[in-house]
């Protein structure tokens, strides 16, 4: 376990988020601690990406509070990383994209290169290190983004549908990478609407629908005996 200075638990207290006249997150209270990989599951438009942005501090809640286990009112940003649903690649090589994050984190230039290469290799992209990131395929870009986040060795890693654009082989590779990152001590908080992926990776599930948490349970229990009607319908692959 980590030293008592850990960022976790992450606490959300009655968080609401409104935009465009709509309530997108509707009063969510959560406490997320160490304990395994957390998967946020829910249908399209449920508010999963917005929730992740609120947790990471990219969006400010309209009401309620998002806090980390920190003395000062800081967002602890440099100890977290996020992989977005749509990867954002800078106009430079794949390797330079990974090294860019390290440079911002203040890690020495020589070490940057080695760490960036290692992270790229871990997502199976070492052969594309010198290629321009923006001309890579969607799946390759997604993996560069994962490598960029991973290289930072964050305490908490937010992942927004990291395998949505990947073919089966790449999906397996990325899921293995995510599991390895988690095993190395990084808290994984991942969004998906892919049931198979949730089953493969989740230790616990937070099921959200229309901006509310309907259910939170260990993965096995959630899939075998969901308590909410919506979750049961979702697991059966029906439209909510």
């Amino acid at each position: 376990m980590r030293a008592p200075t850990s960022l976790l638990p992450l606490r959300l207290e009655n968080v609401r988020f409104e935009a465009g006249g709509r309530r997108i997150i509707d009063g969510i209270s959560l406490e997320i601690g160490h304990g395994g990989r957390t998967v946020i599951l829910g249908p399209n438009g449920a508010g999963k990406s917005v929730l992740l942005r609120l947790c990471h501090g990219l969006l400010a809640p309209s009401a309620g509070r998002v806090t980390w286990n920190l003395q000062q009112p800081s967002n602890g940003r440099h100890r977290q990383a996020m992989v977005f649903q749509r990867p954002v690649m800078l106009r430079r090589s794949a390797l330079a994209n990974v090294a860019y994050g390290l440079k911002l984190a203040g890690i020495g230039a020589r070490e940057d290169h080695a760490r960036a290469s290692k992270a790229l290799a871990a997502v199976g992209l070492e052969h594309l290190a010198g290629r321009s990131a923006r001309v890579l395929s969607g799946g390759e870009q997604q993996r560069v983004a994962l490598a960029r986040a991973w290289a930072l060795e964050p305490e908490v890693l937010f992942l927004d549908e990291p395998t949505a654009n990947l073919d089966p082989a790449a999906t397996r590779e990325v899921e293995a990478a995510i599991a390895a990152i988690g095993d190395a001590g990084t808290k994984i908080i991942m969004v998906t609407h892919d049931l198979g992926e949730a089953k493969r990776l989740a230790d616990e599930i937070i099921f959200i629908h229309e901006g509310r948490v309907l259910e939170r349970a260990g993965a096995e229990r959630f899939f075998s005996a969901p308590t909410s009607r919506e979750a049961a319908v979702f697991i059966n692959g029906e439209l909510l």
Partner: protein
Amino acid sequence: MGTIGPAVSQAAVMIAGLDPQLVRIVALSLGVSLSAVLIATLVGMPIGASIAVARFPGRQATIVLLNALLGLPAVGVGLLVYLLLSRAGPLGEFGILFTPAAMVVAQAILVAPIIAAFSRQAVEDAWREYREQLDSLGAGPFQAALTLLWDCRFSLLTTVLAGFGRAVAEVGTVMIVGGNIDGVTRVMTTAIALETSKGDLPLALGLGIILMGLVLALNATAHAVTEFAKRHYG
């Protein structure tokens, strides 16, 4: 009509033989316009980039104004700079009216809005795309600005080329504030205008060919830069 054929061949001879008068005019033109574009870039690019990422009241109005300045009539700018620099004007004491310096100032004023407006557009598009990612990676405002400028380097370069094209080809401001003084402030465009009206077609044609070639080359370069960037960097 009969004079055009010989005039063209005479112009060709002047260009090929690097006629001293022609060379001096071309050199002055390039010197004035390059200086003007340098100044306009140093002023316009930071302004454009700041407007792109800053949020302040009146921002939309500023953008509309900036875009309107793109269509600034050259003679209008010429007149304005003339009034500023004339003996009785607020900047009259510098005594630079009818010197190349005055032409540099006038062209810089003409071109700065172009560079500012196009830089704003390029940087703002990139900012919209990068904002969350840079925020997530913990980039401060200064680092974010540097990253945006670097990532927009190709579109910014084409913007500078476009600014240079406008400067070197305009005639209104340099005519008014330069005065078209032979050997001092006579640039390509003013020389073409004068020599044509005097009927000295060979020099006018020679300069015209060089000017057109230059503008063509600028556009070709801008196109090549854009294509290169698209192909290699996406």
